[in-house]
């Protein structure tokens, strides 16, 4: 009795201890997430800050390259109730974060006079509903880099660009242009430059969606042409900024669309002195436009010492700090004064031109649901580039989707089911995935089980190896698969070429069919063991006498399989089928790590969509609603499977 009380007491104490968060120290601790601090610019700024403010500890957390992922991290931190104090945000996050009440208005600390010292576009984008929530740290605008040692006259129009590509580029040693073509926010920055350059726009003066326009179609057509004609390498579809930079740096392209930060890198590379920048190309007769980018710092609502956070912001956006960021990182300053600074002019003489471009940088639509709209646009632009959607269809789909999204948000959920384009797409993908993988897993599992059942030596080794794919973490193995399906370093392409099945390496993960195939393959690899084990148990439960009797009755192995083994295995097949269908329909880990649902949403399954609804689009209610339906569908499917797969003899009473 005492032993029981003591043990229970111990456990309870342990549990309580685990619950109490570790207490804070006397210093104020601040955190922010940013990309890897290559060059150490932030480290220096923070060091200087610590010298001036020893009572405040600033922690710069290195996050992934992808801005979308860092945004997710910020969102999750807001939702968790313990937000990161300093919000280092992309220009497009501001409206959304502000609308959700996550940001502290900075009006009291950042009055009009101060604001005017900064670039106008950046300031405009830092407002939401007349309050300012963010202080711009670095500005950004998309522009065209070109090899001035190879091209004397940089192009201004699309037509001039085309001409230069045809005559001067030389794929695959040297392509025409490289840009950001992966399905993410960066793609829209690129796309808008074509759209605006064609004279089109997303929202008209009345703030209505107007994407089903000739300009949009022309812009999409042009982008697609760039890839189809081979002026850009096909792998540009998997590029973000750093990939296009690496490519251009290695001298493999004549032009690059990128942000100003690249200049710094290029200046320390073999291409030093050989690169020039100009505003991005436009259709003849239209005006050039560059997408406004840029990052700024805001303060999270609900933190204990906002003044400490403000102190850091003040410091980090001061002229000195911005200078450091420029020198060490190539960041474009946001203070107008810095463009006249002698050091900076010496360092980056091109800033004179850049300043003019910056003054005309166009922000993306400032809208709290911009992220969602962008996601819709990304999907279709990506689909056009990948080749699975024609520009006119894409243009009308974009128009329809965005309008219906905005509309749908006002609709009741049931009606929304019919309109929700994303939902339909993901359901289709989920069905495709399930139908492709489950039959294979079952057949392969049966085959393996039959092999494992045979009295051969080394059975133990066999059983052990069969267990392994199932036991390994899916997410981790998905990374391994990414590597194996890689082009050009992947082993799968290599093996296939050596065997002679294919002549050239295939682009697995950047084509819709290839990505789905890769996902199905990886899933089959992982879950066949599970099926094998269940069926093996089934095989071993068949009394030996039955098999002997049937072979006496005249059945060779194939007939035995048909008349005895398969029927007796049906209860087990049933179970395996149900487990597998449920698992395949709800697949998340594998896809999320392997392809994130891309390219062009071709591998996006229902679970991914619902997850996004909850965590990225802030539509928890709708997400739950869909989950309920999903569950019902799964339960129904299980019931159907059980009903149809029960042999009569099982149902009959004794």
């Amino acid at each position: 009795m005492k032993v029981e009380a003591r043990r229970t007491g111990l456990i309870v104490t342990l549990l309580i201890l685990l619950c109490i968060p570790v207490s804070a120290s006397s210093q104020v601790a601040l955190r922010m997430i940013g990309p890897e601090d290559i060059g150490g610019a932030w480290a220096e700024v923070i060091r200087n800050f610590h010298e001036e403010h020893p009572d405040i500890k600033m922690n710069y957390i290195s996050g992934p390259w992808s801005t979308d992922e860092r945004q997710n991290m910020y969102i999750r931190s807001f939702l968790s109730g313990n937000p990161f104090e300093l919000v280092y945000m992309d220009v497009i996050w501001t409206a959304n974060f502000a609308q959700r009440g996550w940001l502290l208005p900075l009006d009291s600390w950042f009055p009009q006079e101060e604001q005017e010292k900064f670039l106008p576009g950046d300031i405009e984008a830092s407002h939401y509903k007349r309050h300012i929530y963010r202080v711009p740290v670095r500005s950004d605008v998309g522009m065209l880099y070109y090899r001035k040692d190879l091209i004397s006259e940089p192009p201004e129009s699309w037509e001039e660009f085309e001409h230069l590509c045809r005559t001067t580029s030389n794929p695959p040693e040297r392509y025409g242009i490289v840009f950001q073509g992966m399905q993410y926010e960066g793609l829209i920055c690129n796309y808008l430059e074509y759209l605006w350059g064609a004279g089109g726009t997303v929202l008209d003066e009345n703030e209505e969606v107007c994407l089903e326009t000739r300009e949009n179609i022309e812009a999409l057509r042009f982008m697609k042409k760039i890839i189809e004609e081979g002026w850009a390498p096909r792998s540009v579809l998997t590029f973000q900024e750093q990939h296009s930079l690496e490519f251009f740096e290695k001298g493999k392209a004549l032009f690059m669309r990128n942000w100003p930060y690249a200049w710094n890198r290029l200046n320390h590379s073999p291409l030093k002195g050989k690169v020039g920048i100009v505003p991005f190309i436009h259709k003849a007769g239209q005006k050039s436009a560059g997408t406004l980018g840029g990052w700024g710092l805001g303060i999270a609502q609900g933190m204990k010492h906002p003044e400490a956070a403000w102190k850091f912001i003040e410091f980090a956006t001061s002229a000195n700090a911005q200078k450091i960021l420029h020198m060490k990182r190539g960041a474009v300053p946001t203070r107008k004064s810095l463009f006249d600074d002698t050091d900076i002019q010496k360092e980056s003489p091109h800033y004179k031109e850049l300043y003019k471009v910056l003054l005309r940088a166009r922000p993306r639509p400032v809208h709290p649901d911009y992220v969602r709209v962008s996601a819709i646009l990304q999907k279709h632009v990506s689909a056009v580039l990948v080749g699975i959607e024609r520009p006119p269809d894409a243009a009308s789909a974009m128009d329809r989707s965005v309008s219906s999204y905005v509309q749908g948000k006002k609709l009741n959920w049931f009606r929304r089911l019919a309109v929700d384009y994303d939902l339909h797409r993901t359901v289709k993908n989920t069905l495709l995935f399930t139908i492709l993988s489950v039959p294979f897993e079952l057949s392969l599992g049966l085959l393996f089980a039959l092999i494992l059942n045979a009295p051969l030596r080394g059975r133990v080794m066999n059983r052990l190896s069969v267990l392994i794919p199932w036991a390994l973490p899916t997410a981790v193995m998905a990374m391994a698969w990414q590597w194996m399906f890689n082009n050009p370093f992947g082993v799968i392409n290599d093996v296939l070429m050596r065997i002679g099945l294919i002549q050239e390496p295939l682009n697995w993960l950047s084509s819709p069919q290839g990505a789905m195939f890769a996902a199905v393959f990886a899933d089959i690899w992982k879950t066949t063991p599970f099926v094998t084990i269940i069926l093996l148990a089934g095989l071993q439960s068949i009394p030996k006498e039955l098999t002997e009797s049937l072979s006496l009755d005249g059945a060779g192995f194939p007939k035995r399989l048909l008349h005895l083994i398969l029927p007796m295995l049906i209860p087990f097949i049933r179970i395996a089928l149900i487990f597998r269908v449920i698992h395949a329909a709800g697949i998340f880990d594998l896809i999320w790590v392997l392809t994130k649902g891309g390219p062009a949403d071709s591998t996006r399954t229902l679970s991914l969509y619902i997850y996004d609804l909850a965590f990225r689009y802030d539509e928890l209610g709708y997400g739950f609603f869909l989950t309920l339906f999903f569950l019902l569908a799964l339960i129904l499917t299980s019931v159907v499977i059980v009903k149809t797969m029960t042999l009569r003899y099982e149902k009959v009473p004794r």
Partner: protein
Amino acid sequence: MGGKVTALQDINLKIPNGMFTSILGPSGCGKTTLLRLVAGLEKPDAGEVLIRDSVVNDVPPRERNIAMVFQNYALYPHKRVFENMAIGLRLRRFPEHDIKKKVDGVARMLKIEDFMERYPKQLSGGQQQRVALGRALVRDPEVFLLDEPLSNLDAQVREVTRTEIKKLFKNLQATVIYVTHDQTEAMMMSDFVVVMDRGTVRQTGEPISIYKDPDHRFVAEFLGTHRINLLHGRIENAKFISDDGLIVYDAKIKTQGNVLAGVRPEHIVLGPHKEIPLKGITVLIEPIGTTHLVSVRVGENEFKILTAEAPNLQNQIMASFSLQDVYFFDDQSGRRLRPDV
């Protein structure tokens, strides 16, 4: 036979045609293995298996024209009774019409025609067994192999079924090999008996002759409703002397040395009516229907006597038996010692 246990050794056996042969022995004696060898479910490590003068070692089971009834019936649970019985013919591509005729015929013979549409799990043990039999009968094979088919049945069902099986196969004049550990079954049903013990054949022959004239102590002990009384002693100068010296009589046998003398309970009578006397005390009386099995203690040994009247317990009693009912066995080898040896 794989593994480290020798299941069968030095078997040289001829099973007669058209007769009901039992292979009798305790568990582990190798009788089932022998059956499976004939079926082709096991392969011999050395030697040949012949069916009708052709060597069938390499012939797979399904081509040997044999049918087997398993101990646990081995009915296919997912097929109806009709299907269970028909499958052998189906697999051999018999025309459908013939199959139906044959199955129905056998079903009628076994009186299971009402069960054709049921599933095995809906039948009782006895009914399942008949279906298993029917499955074999339908095949019309050269040899029927039955592996302890009655052992899973209740005692009373067993008796009835035993007779039915015997009659059935008698009518068919089929060659049957029937494995059992129950000596009553073997005695009552067979034309020919093979007695096995630990992988070797001890004796073969007709049931009566084996019973009356056992070749080996094992056979004498194994057969018989009631266990034979065995007395240890030695033979000197044609006289049998028990170890404790209390029982002595003329043996009329030429051998010398240690022997076991066996007498069956039913051959000992109460009273001095036969030549060799036994004097002792009754220690236990076990009534069996109309007779009694009386245990009598003589010196160090106990004898069981089968008799109609029950003597009083703990009384002195006199019983007797005659020499011609005594079997002598060599103490070492267990072999039977016959008078002219």
